[in-house]
């Protein structure tokens, strides 16, 4: 028999056994040898190997440890259903955990690690859990780690996190790039097997835009593992020919290595394309590692195939026990044999294909079939070829722990719970097949209903309210001929729904030759040698270590609902999402309860189908793209000047400009004093600016502001307060009258978009009779405040022709004109209490004018100041900031601005609300100033004043600090606060208890701390 094996010296050294066969291997290219690392060991393979096949070819069957019991585990599946052989791929920031070894394509230099083992794969400390497993039943965590509560955080949780859990996340930032891509298609076909290819071709024939998405590198699904012929061609050749035709069509887009991870309402789907995982040179060439496709499809055809079911028999989790399809796949695709002497354990005909393939490859094989007989073609052929078949038998025991050494075969009649007679046979691997489950995940993600099919002993698609069809094995259609017909019809129907007028191509169902199968017989539990569940676990959910006994225990403990059982035992959770465990678990529950499987129901399938990277979810929006940052025209200058920034909405505003050797406190103090004593320059470009024009503009403004604007004269500015309908302050700012019917409104920086929308909403939905247009122009203008006693000097220096006399240009007026070569709007308004000019120039001229102002101001000692100085300056003057002095429940009267609430106007927003008893009543909090007893003590922002200080809370609170600063101008601290009946308490001393028992005392004063008569503004 040795002559049939491809001889590899290192294989022999490593294992003493040749696992890579000489013949076949449709996916591998033996001329391209590759080398990679698995758990720090150099492994060689061929181009076309998966990590699983290359490692198995070396004879290594152990790939990881199980979740709870740390039992040794090997590869079970063929592809994305793999639940044991999870690996971490890559190093450092590139590491991606929880990848299925069966899907990882190897390349030179690949580095992969097994997971969930400590300290090493072959010796695992956690495996002690396996020995004490009778003390770790289902619900163990819930039962054990409940008490005392304080132990949870420091004892139980760290223990569980280290002992259990799947792979570890990378600890460094991911250096690779990712991106999103949107696409709209007429027909999306998910799955590139025989069904998907056929449907896609039929849909494309009408000219519809078709996208075909498949998770594997190669199209064809499992056509290569399917017996039969279409016409004169083998199934696989027929499928590959269709794939080639599709690839060349201009209206078809094929995505390989792409998993549709979720299917959401209205046929919105997401697919993660692994662009460069298989070839890092693509990354270097600029490709994203993963690309997340956001697909909007008019019609969806699900051709997601079916997954083979394991069988629940004693110790069915030993490395070397695999799904029959996985054994066949490794043999046909990578020429890897799992051993030299195997058993196929089945309850159906299909698995006989595996037996035949093994026989043909020269691998010893026998079949254990739980059915009493089968007259199916494959079974008869196996018998004719001399394969030993034990009908009416199950595997009742497996010997070996890190591999399979022998198995016991017991006689079995349907439903039998105990072993009566058994015989021992030597073998080194087992291929199991409990039937096939249609892959319903995507069907169910989007709300599809399913029904139980007794022939399949599985669920299949039922009704759906979206434009979706399931075809082929995904629909429970298990023969090639029916699949071809169904797929073609679905493709044509989907295309017709999108393009009703297109003519369908003529289609003649080809002659299909395929083996006739006998029925499978459900087998939910194979009786075991010895005492049940002692040292012979029947695994249902391999990934979560859930056994038949756990499910039965949950039933006995009263977890009747399948959803409760799922959460209690963790069966079907995590990345498995029920792929291999679901139906077997339901079968067990059915036998334990005497209910049918449809009566038990099924747990929810949740996205993602398989895990996908966080990188792909974030896409390109990381680093500097994580959050859009708005820059004023002066931004670069601020950066060059070393400004510290603060976020204001999405804007970054200069907070202060620390000089060499200065801390922020020092620079803020310097900036404030510069404005008070000389002159300062502030970038106020972020202020909201809205042009409002129309015959009704003045009346409109009268309605949105609390105070009167119709009386404002052209050329003048007025400060306005805005309330919402509830009577609460929502914005403020200065509005100027450009012309009789034309105003320019300023809003707060943060309120710019909100207020523009607010104005539009009232115009469009309530006051539709008004002829008013509103155009936001915030970003048209760069705007600066030149403030301080020398402001006028700076302005005069900039342009001696600009008339700045108080007579020509008094406080609260504005001028349009030119400062030198700069077209400007100049507003004589002040938020600092100083003589102040706000100058606006078109944004693209902003930086030029900014620098020109600084040049002109040098001789007057001008300094740029940031937003913190701005805030202190305004607080010294008692000017409110909406959002600081107001909290969304504050009225103009509360903040002492009753004089700005018109008594004359017939109506305006919030007027009626101010008449409500609770807004007019006594005991409202009113804005007052505070001076601490200790002048250098600065109250914390938000500190509460209490009626009576007690040893500990609760204490009755009577108000809170809204703004609080050290005032360099006054050489002491100042604050403002909203205090119950504050204005009638002038001179009272309040107590502010702070954390740690400290109590700060402060006297209530007027809110204006500086220049109380306001003379400086008019200088």
């Amino acid at each position, binding site marked *: 028999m040795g002559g049939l094996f491809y001889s590899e010296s290192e294989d022999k050294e490593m294992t003493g056994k040749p696992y890579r066969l000489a013949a076949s291997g449709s996916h591998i290219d033996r001329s391209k040898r590759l080398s990679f690392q698995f758990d720090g060991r150099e492994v060689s393979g061929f181009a076309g190997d998966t990590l699983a096949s290359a490692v198995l070819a070396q004879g290594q069957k152990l790939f990881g440890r199980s979740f709870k019991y740390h039992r040794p585990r090997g590869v079970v599946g063929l592809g994305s259903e793999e639940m044991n052989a999870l690996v971490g791929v890559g190093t450092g920031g590139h590491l991606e955990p929880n990848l299925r070894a069966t899907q990882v394509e190897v390349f030179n230099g690949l580095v992969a690690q097994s997971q969930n083992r400590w300290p090493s794969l072959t010796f695992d400390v956690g495996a002690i859990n396996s020995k004490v497993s009778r003390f770790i039943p289902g619900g163990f965590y819930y039962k054990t780690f409940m008490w005392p509560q304080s132990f949870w955080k420091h004892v139980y949780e760290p223990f569980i996190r280290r002992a259990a859990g799947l792979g570890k996340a990378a600890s460094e930032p991911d250096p690779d*790039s990712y*991106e*999103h*891509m*949107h*696409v*709209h298609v007429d027909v999306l076909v998910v799955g590139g097997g025989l069904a998907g290819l056929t449907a896609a071709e039929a849909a494309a024939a009408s000219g519809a*835009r078709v996208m075909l998405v498949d998770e594997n590198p190669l199209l064809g699904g499992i056509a290569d593992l399917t017996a039969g012929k279409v016409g004169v061609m083998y199934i696989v050749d027929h499928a590959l020919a269709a794939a080639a035709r599709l690839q060349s*069509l*201009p*209206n*078809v*887009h094929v995505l390989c290595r792409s998993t549709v991870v979720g299917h959401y309402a209205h046929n919105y789907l997401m697919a993660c394309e692994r662009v460069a995982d298989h070839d890092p040179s*693509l990354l270097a*060439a*600029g*490709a*994203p590692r993963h*690309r997340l496709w*956001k697909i*909007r499809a008019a019609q969806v055809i699900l051709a997601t195939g079916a997954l083979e079911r394991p069988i629940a028999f004693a110790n069915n989790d030993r490395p070397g026990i695999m799904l029959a399809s996985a054994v066949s796949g490794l043999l046909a695709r990578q020429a890897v044999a799992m051993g030299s002497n195997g058993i196929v354990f089945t309850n159906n005909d299909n698995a006989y294909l595996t037996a035949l393939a093994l026989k043909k490859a020269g691998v010893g094989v026998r079949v254990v079939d739980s059915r009493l007989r089968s007259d199916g073609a494959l079974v008869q052929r196996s018998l004719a070829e001399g394969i030993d078949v034990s009908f009416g038998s199950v595997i009742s025991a497996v010997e070996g722990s890190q591999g399979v050494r022998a198995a016991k075969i017991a006689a079995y009649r349907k439903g039998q719970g105990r072993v009566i007679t058994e015989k021992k046979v030597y073998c080194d691997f087992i291929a199991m097949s409990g039937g096939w489950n249609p892959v319903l995940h995507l069907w169910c993600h989007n709300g599809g209903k399913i029904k139980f099919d007794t022939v399949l002993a599985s669920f299949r698609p039922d009704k759906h309210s979206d434009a979706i069809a399931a075809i082929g094995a995904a629909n429970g259609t298990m023969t090639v001929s029916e699949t071809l017909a169904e797929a073609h019809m679905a493709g044509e129907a989907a295309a017709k729904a999108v393009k009703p007028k297109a003519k369908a191509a003529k289609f003649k169902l080809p002659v299909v030759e395929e083996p006739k199968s006998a029925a499978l017989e459900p087998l939910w539990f194979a009786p075991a040698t010895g005492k049940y569940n002692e040292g012979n676990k029947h695994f249902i959910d391999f990934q979560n270590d859930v056994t038949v006994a756990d499910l039965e225990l949950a039933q006995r403990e009263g977890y009747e609902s399948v959803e409760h059982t799922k959460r209690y035992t963790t069966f079907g959770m995590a990345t498995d999402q029920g792929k291999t465990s679901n139906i077997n678990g339901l079968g067990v529950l059915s036998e334990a309860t005497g209910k049918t499987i449809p009566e038990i129901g099924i747990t929810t399938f949740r996205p993602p189908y398989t895990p996908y990277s966080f990188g792909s979810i974030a896409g*390109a*929006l990381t680093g*500097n*793209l994580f*959050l*859009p*940052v*708005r*820059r004023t*025209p002066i931004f*670069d200058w601020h950066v060059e000047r070393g400004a510290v920034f603060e976020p204001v909405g*999405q804007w970054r505003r200069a907070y202060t400009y620390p000089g060499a050797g200065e801390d922020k406190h020092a620079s803020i103090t310097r900036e404030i004093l510069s404005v008070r004593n000389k002159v300062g320059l502030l970038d106020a470009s972020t202020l909201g600016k809205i*042009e409002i*024009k*129309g*015959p009704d503009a003045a009346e409109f403004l009268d309605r949105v502001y609390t105070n009167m604007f119709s009386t404002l004269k052209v050329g003048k500015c007025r400060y306005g307060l805005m309330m919402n309908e509830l009577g609460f302050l929502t914005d403020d700012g200065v509005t100027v009258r450009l012309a009789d019917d*034309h105003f320019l409104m300023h809003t707060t920086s943060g309120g710019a978009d909100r207020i523009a929308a607010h104005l539009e909403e009232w115009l469009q939905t309530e006051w539709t009779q008004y*002829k008013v*247009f509103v155009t936001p*122009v915030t*970003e*048209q*203008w760069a705007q600066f405040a030149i403030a301080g006693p020398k402001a006028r000097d700076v302005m005069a220096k*900039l*342009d001696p022709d600009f008339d700045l006399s108080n007579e020509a240009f008094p406080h609260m007026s504005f001028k349009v004109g030119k*400062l*030198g*070569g700069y*077209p400007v709007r100049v507003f004589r308004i002040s938020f600092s209490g100083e003589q102040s000019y706000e100058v606006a120039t*078109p*944004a*693209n*001229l*902003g*930086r*030029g004018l900014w*620098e*020109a102002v600084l040049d*002109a101001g040098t001789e007057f000692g001008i300094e740029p100041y940031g937003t913190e100085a701005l805030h202190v300056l305004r607080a010294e003057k008692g000017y409110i900031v909406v959002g600081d002095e107001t909290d969304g429940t504050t009225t103009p009267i509360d903040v002492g601005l009753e004089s700005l609430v018109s008594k004359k106007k017939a109506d305006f927003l919030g007027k009626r609300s101010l008449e409500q008893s609770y807004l007019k009543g006594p005991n409202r909090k009113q804005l007052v100033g505070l001076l601490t007893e200790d002048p250098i003590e600065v109250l914390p922002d938000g500190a509460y004043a209490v009626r009576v200080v007690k040893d500990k809370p609760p204490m009755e609170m009577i108000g809170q600090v809204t703004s609080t600063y050290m005032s360099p101008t006054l050489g002491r601290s100042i604050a403002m606060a909203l205090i119950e009946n504050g204005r009638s308490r002038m001179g009272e001393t309040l107590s502010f208890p702070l954390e740690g028992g400290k109590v700060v005392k402060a006297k209530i004063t007027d809110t204006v701390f500086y220049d109380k008569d306001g003379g400086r503004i008019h200088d």
Partner: protein
Amino acid sequence: MIEAKYESALANRSEPSNASILIREMNGRGMIDVRGAAADRKFLAAMKSVLGFDLPKVPRSSATWGDVRALWLSTDQWLITCNGTKADELSAALVAALGGLHSLVVNVSDMRAVIRLEGEGVRETVMKGTSIDLTDGDYPPGTVRRMRFAEIAALLHIVEDNVIEIYVFRSYADYVWEFLLKAARKGSEVRLFGNRG
């Protein structure tokens, strides 16, 4: 007298060297925001008297005459683009022609940055940042629409089959520029359907 110094939003950005398409800022473009009722015949006539062509009234469309173009923004709003040096003059002419008619004309030439994308694959590049289907027949040259692009609001104008201009508020220019450099990076090209070549 001090001379005005002009600096566009992306003035300090160099030409991208690693992009699969041409990306550049169209600085110096004049932009005038016009508000008026599409149902107001006098308004339309006054606009035509200055522009020389009718304002487009079909949603998401545009009209062009020489170097003046009108982009439909909504049922009562258009963006007129022209050579930047003529924006003041054109605004003044529009204001004069509209006289007492209910309207609002604002020169907003500095309010937005315009980024022009040219070359094979521009539509797919933009589709990395927006959910709209630019490969659809609904998006011929001349199409204008607002869109969410990456994380912000933007105005899209399809100038020619392979030429797209994106208008964004000036403060977001850097953000969009960075996004486009990433999306158009060589080696990351996506060609949909028949454009795989």
